[in-house]
Structures are given as C-alpha cells and as structure tokens.
C-alpha cells in the first residue's frame, strides 16, 4: 500500500517536502518501520535509522503501536522523541 508519512522534528531534514511517500509491503506499523529503515539505507540516509528506532507512528488522533495496522487511507506521521515546552 502507499503510505504518506508526515515528517516532524529531525525528520524534516530528510528532504525538502513535509511528507515522504513510501510503498509498503504489508499492513502493520512494524512493516512500515522496517521498510522505512530499508528505504533510508537505500537512499544514503542510513544515519536516520537509529532515529526511526526510537520514533513512534501516529494518526491525527492516536499513537500507533507496531502491532497496529496502518490506517486505510495510508496517512500517518512519524514522531521522533519529543521535546516540547
């Protein structure tokens, strides 16, 4: 499925757009996480793999855990460790 991943914080540096579009084989957040790491490695951004490992995924309303399914509309966000306030 096609996933559109909104980018925040340190993931803003990945590229100039505010989202990253990715074809994901599988439907779980764990699948997305693994394939995002592979994508980063393949595109010369292996330095961000560690950050993916400590990042969460979320929709507008909730955090998504690794066993959760990717939302049907493929719209979600990757949230690196937060530092508000």
């Amino acid at each position: 499925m096609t996933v559109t991943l909104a980018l925040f914080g340190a993931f803003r540096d990945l590229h100039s757009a505010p989202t990253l579009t990715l074809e994901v084989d599988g439907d779980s957040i764990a699948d997305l996480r693994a394939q995002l790491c592979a994508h980063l490695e393949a595109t010369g951004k292996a330095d961000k793999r560690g950050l993916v490992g400590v990042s969460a995924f979320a929709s507008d309303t909730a955090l998504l855990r690794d066993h959760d399914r990717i939302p049907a509309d493929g719209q979600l966000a990757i949230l690196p460790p937060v530092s508000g306030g």
Partner: protein
Amino acid sequence: MLIENSLHCAVLNVSEAALDPAAALDFVSDGRFGGLNMFVGKVRSQNHGREVVGISYDIYQALALNVFRQLAAEVQTEFGPQLKLYVAHACGRLKVGDIAVVVAAGTPHRDEAFRACRALIEAVKHRAPIWKQEHFIDGDSAWSEGCSLCGHEHDDPAKPPAPTALSPNRHVHG
C-alpha cells in the same frame, strides 16, 4: 470526560498570536477557586553551556490538541472535577525571552493547583508531539534530543543509539 468549559487547549502560530498568561489566569479562575498556579516556559539564552539565540517549535497540531485534551482528562481524573486547566504552546520561531508554553490550573485549594499544573506541564513535555530546534549563536542549529513516544512492546528493526552522559535528556523508549 472534562466538564464543559473547564479546559482550554491551543497551539498558536507565533506569526499570528503570542501566548497570553493573563488569559490563562482568567480562564482558570472561578468563584469557587482560591488557588491558581501557572507555569510559563520561556526561551532561555543558554542550554548545555551553549549560547542560544532562538528556538523553532515544530508541532503536529491536530494530534497535539488531541493529546492535550487526553492529558488534561488524566489530570482531572487524578484531581477531581473542581479543576480548570489551560494549556497553550507556541509554534514557529521564538527568540530568547519569548514564551513557549503556558500551563495553568485553578482549584479550590493551593496544593491541588500546584500539583495539577505540574502534572500537566510534565505530561505536555514528555508526551505531546512537539519538537524543539535550538539555534545557537554560532549559526548552528540542532533538534533537541527528547522523550521517545515508543511503547516498550515492539521489536526495534533498528537498534536505538545508547544514551550517553552528553545527552541527559534522552529517554530511549521512555
């Protein structure tokens, strides 16, 4: 569930509006309440020994508002219905001395006001989808290390970097 009108949550784009502590105090006031406590977070000129000239806040606004409501509901569960809460966070680029966040709590007595306000700012700092990029005087900028929102239940495909003494704020899978 929060009682109607007992909670105000906002994310304000600094180009459009500044945070307003007076509005926060007004909001959490009530004839029944003798104690109001407010926390105001400002951009400070030093962090980890480096001189800071500004901070840019990046916020996932739709989720942040939902998270603020959830965190406030948790605080209300702890402290009871006689409680008004206010939380507002700035989004965009701030300079030293600008207000980044305002949290306020009004309650009948002061102990609950202090504790509810503290609980809410701690939750906002650790759990709201907000990211801070510090701008240093030498022209360098860096996203702050922060608190991971990952649960502990997943298997990481990538090993997280180990925390070091130089990154005391890093809570890996915290």
